């Protein structure tokens, strides 16, 4: 097999296959799930919890560039963003901008200190 095709095969076998299988499974499991049922409510709460857990993981044990900023600054960006969101007429954009501004300034200041 050609060397140049190897990365594409890696993507398909080690990436797409183990990932997509759960989306496909959901399509077939969904037959007969009722929007008003308790099972569906439970699934919705689990999905919400999982996304909150992803957020925590991105902040708590992050990738390279973010790891160089102290945990206290990384974590503080979230309440700043949430507070700005509620204070500024529930604007998603302004909430994110406020959290980002706080984060970049604090990270920059920390880098100088």
């Amino acid at each position, binding site marked *: 097999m050609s060397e140049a095709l190897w*990365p*594409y095969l*890696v*993507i398909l076998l*080690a*990436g*797409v*296959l*183990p*990932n*997509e299988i*759960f*989306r*496909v499974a*959901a*399509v077939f*499991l969904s037959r007969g*799930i*009722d*929007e008003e049922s308790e099972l569906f*409510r*439970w*699934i*919705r*709460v*689990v*999905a*919400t*919890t*999982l*996304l*909150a*857990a*992803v*957020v925590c*993981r*991105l902040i*708590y*044990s*992050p*990738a390279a*560039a*973010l790891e*160089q*900023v102290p945990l206290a600054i*990384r974590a503080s*960006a*979230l309440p700043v*963003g*949430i507070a700005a*969101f509620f204070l500024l007429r529930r604007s*998603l954009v302004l*909430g*994110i901008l406020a*959290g*980002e501004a706080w*984060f*970049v300034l604090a*990270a920059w200041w920390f*880098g100088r200190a």
Partner: protein
Amino acid sequence: MSSAFRRDFVWGFGRALALPAWIVGFSLLGVGSLARDAGHPIGAAVLSTILIWAAPAQLILYGTIASGGLLVAAALAVGLSAIRLLPMVLSIWPYLRRPGQPLWLQLLMAHFVAATSWIDATRHLPGMEPDRRVPYYLGFASACVAVSSTMTALGFLLVGALPGPMAAGLLCLTPLYFMIALVGSARNAPDWLAIALGVGLVPVAQITVGRDFDLLATGLVGGTAAYLLGRWLPRRAA
């Protein structure tokens, strides 16, 4: 394609371009640079964004390759990270599933499910006319994939060009967006408990079950606790 379909597709596409597509796009910038570190060509990096369409899975895959880990281990870790997609697809399915949809369309809609499209679907689909949901959702997700593919290529080409605080700031966009959107769309006690437990249990889960199973354990244990407490607390207060 009917004009109503095109109108709602464009509506969703524009809604994504107004902000969410760029947020997910910026998080794929990092995937592009990681792919280059792993020694993959730019085509494979972009293809991974289109076909995997889940940044955590891509980070795991490329992170493992870059650090010289086993491909089998990478595939297992990707699978573990992808289990969360199952409840995500199921929980928006009642809004997307219409009678007579061909299987390829169902699989395409399921493929588009990732954190960004899920949170937008959760926020906006329930209040929408049923006939407009599918084209809106397809438009929204298409814009996200298009922007993210471009950003993956850009990240591949620009690797390491950004100064530290800026690079860190870009990585901070995704958790900020998800968290504010989650808080903004929380409506009842189980939602709030799910957010609190999801955030609070990850450090505990990392110590007890380790980093491979932390998300899964937090989702199942925290989610079930939030569901049960959310049912029990309002009754006690009443």
